[in-house]
């Protein structure tokens, strides 16, 4: 009986091995002995999630490392200190590509970044699952919840212990959560290699929040920070130019702006009366349309400085609307020198200091325009 079972087992293992190496005749004869349809079915299900076996991935990693060394040799660099950045640069040099989509260009990265993370087969030779929560269907998720709750109980025990000793007041260790955020649902799914529902995700986050509220949660800080992601600090790239003074002692400031294909540069003078000259012509003559003049007015009106500044600007390229937008950006940037930091922040939030990134979309072949398709004829 046991021998028969062993034979069956050898058959199943051999069968799946036969998928990869069909030339093993011994496996074939073994299969014919026992009923293997159920086993077959289970094997197909098992081979579903695992498209790349561990051995395959290991192979890929070895090949990648070898390839890296070869590449370093080719480029004349030292193979020991060849970083991933150098690899990228070398590939970009050896295989120049004009494709617009960055992800379609040739890449050489570590196999763990290329092949998607997948789950290894969850059960062993005896078809018993490894994990004790396998039959819940979402084993990683429930095990995670279980772990977190375990940590919570640990912290509470620790707190009780301290309270018993009377040292609770001094030993409060809180986790610093500023500057980071909880992982979003997609990131958590990626971490667990398992699909989650919104409800599951919210449960998980609530539990973590509850953990964080405890006074002594500092002991599990490392574990909790695994679920936090650092927020990118907004780099203050905006450098505000100081005011310049011309011959008469009038303060002025310059700014550049662009929109679509227009490029504008503006010089804003202080102690003015609201006169604006565009390319040597009065702005009323240059922009007969009111919409464009409203665009010019926007930065000054926002800062409540309508009649206080003069402006001389030059603009080229584009159409009337994009020229107006370019001048608006240029004048807003020039005005930054005259105002306080807070007002600069207000302007930035109003969108006056951001260059509009929209440009004309390219026409695609097989279509009449960027989006418009040719007339569809039924026959």
């Amino acid at each position, binding site marked *: 009986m046991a021998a028969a079972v062993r034979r069956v087992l050898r058959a199943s293992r051999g069968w799946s091995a036969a998928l990869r190496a069909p030339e093993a005749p011994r496996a074939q004869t073994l299969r014919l002995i026992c009923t293997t349809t159920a086993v077959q079915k289970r094997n197909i299900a098992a081979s579903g999630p695992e498209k790349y076996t561990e051995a395959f991935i290991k192979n890929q990693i070895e090949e990648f490392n070898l390839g890296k060394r070869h590449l370093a040799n080719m480029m004349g660099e030292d193979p020991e200190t060849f970083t991933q950045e150098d690899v990228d640069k070398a590939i970009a040099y050896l295989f120049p590509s004009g494709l617009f989509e960055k992800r379609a260009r040739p890449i050489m990265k570590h196999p763990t970044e290329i092949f998607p993370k997948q789950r290894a087969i969850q059960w062993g030779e005896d078809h018993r699952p490894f994990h004790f929560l396998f039959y819940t269907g979402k084993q990683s998720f429930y095990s995670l919840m279980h772990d977190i709750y375990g940590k919570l109980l640990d912290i509470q025990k620790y707190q009780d212990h301290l309270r018993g000793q009377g040292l609770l007041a001094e030993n409060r260790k809180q986790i610093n959560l500023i500057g980071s955020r909880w992982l979003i649902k997609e990131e958590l799914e990626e971490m667990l290699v398992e699909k989650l529902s919104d409800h599951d995700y919210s449960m998980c986050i609530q539990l973590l929040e509850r953990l964080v509220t405890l006074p002594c949660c500092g002991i599990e800080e490392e574990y909790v920070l695994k679920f936090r992601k650092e927020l990118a600090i907004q780099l203050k790239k905006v450098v505000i130019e100081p005011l310049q003074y011309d011959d008469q002692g009038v303060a002025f400031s310059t700014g550049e702006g662009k929109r679509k294909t227009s490029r504008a540069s503006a010089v804003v003078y202080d102690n003015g009366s609201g006169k604006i000259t565009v390319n040597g012509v009065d702005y*009323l003559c240059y922009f007969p349309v*009111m919409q464009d*003049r409203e665009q010019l*007015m926007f930065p000054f009106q926002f800062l*409540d400085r309508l009649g206080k500044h003069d402006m001389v600007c030059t603009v080229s390229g584009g159409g009337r609307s994009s020229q107006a937008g370019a001048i608006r950006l240029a004048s807003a940037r020039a005005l930054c020198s005259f105002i306080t930091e807070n007002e600069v922040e207000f302007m930035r939030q109003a969108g006056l200091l951001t260059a509009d990134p929209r440009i004309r979309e390219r026409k695609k072949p097989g279509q009449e325009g960027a989006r418009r398709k040719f007339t569809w004829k039924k026959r």
Partner: protein
Amino acid sequence: MLRSVKGVICQGPKLDSGYFLHASARAWLSAAVNQDAQIPAEKPRAVFRTNESNPANHAEQHEGQHYSIPLQEVKVVFPHGLPYRFQMQMKTFNESCLMVRKPALELLGYLKSTNLAHPAIRYVIYGEKGTGKTMTLCHAIHYCAKQDWLVLHIPDAHVWVKNCRELMQSSYNKERFDQPLEASTWLKNFKTSNDHFLKEIKTQQTYMWSKRESTEKGRPLGEVVEQGLTRVKNASDAVGVVLKELKQQCPLGAFRLLVAVDGINALWGQTTLRKKDKSAVSPEELTLVHNLRKMVVNDWNGGAIVTTLSQTGSLFKPRSAYLPHELLGKEGFDTLDPFIPIRVSNYSQREFESCYQYYLDRKWLQHDRARTEEGRKELLFLSNSNPWQLERISAYL
């Protein structure tokens, strides 16, 4: 001395241009009452208005203020000639108010001091689009009408060189072309404005209109006009006759003649009219234009010629052109030379304030924000103190 006194009194309001009204409206009102030296009606008139409705008495102190013309007078003096938008505004507000501005005051000063013995001086009012050239002309016409001049007002010379539906060959001169419709319209309006003169002025020669119709020598000019109106075919020739008679008789001193032409650059530009064989008609081939050109030459005395340049109705001229030599061309400039140029520009601070207050008073600016200081600054910026632009923007609010 009086002038310097007036200047001293005028110092006060001119200090903080644009803000004085908001600062001390009451003080200014009382000052205005003193300045005008006229006891106002029961309620105090606002600062942007003046009671002085005779243009002869308009002076620097009235600058920036609106004066109203009674509607009856408007019908007589301006049967044609006021800008279309102004006419609509007149209908809406039920009154016609003109602003007294510096170029107009200058022109009135010159007209007041015209020497009737000297040849007629030509004044050319020019400026950018929408700055008030036609309104200045109308102000001068009103003054002359009040002073009992004979006003020969051609509201828009461009109308005569484009969009003519009936172009007939002239019976008088085979090479020229007649425009019966335009001529008859003009004659009708001319009759409305100068009725009393037409009875007094007599023709100095006989005119044969056709085999059976003629006007004898010594008949009042009104008959010629009637002839033109009834026999539309002869309307253009009637116009020519009227112009010739007036030019001949004006130096005799019976009346003073004001020739007011709006858009005089049409006379020397190009036309959009075509002959039967699709070749272009040049302006001198049109009877009306030909006769008007003779009128504008300064070989007569006893009056004045006031003209405006206009790019708006002009043909084949770029939008940015506003200077005399650009719009008139070489030929026109040489014909009109020498002339006195009068430049009209956008509103000054004071004038803008006055116009803004007028619109507020007439409840034309309905938007809540228009009444605030920011709204006012916005209007100032968006219109750049251009009268035409300001009027158009206010119409939306």
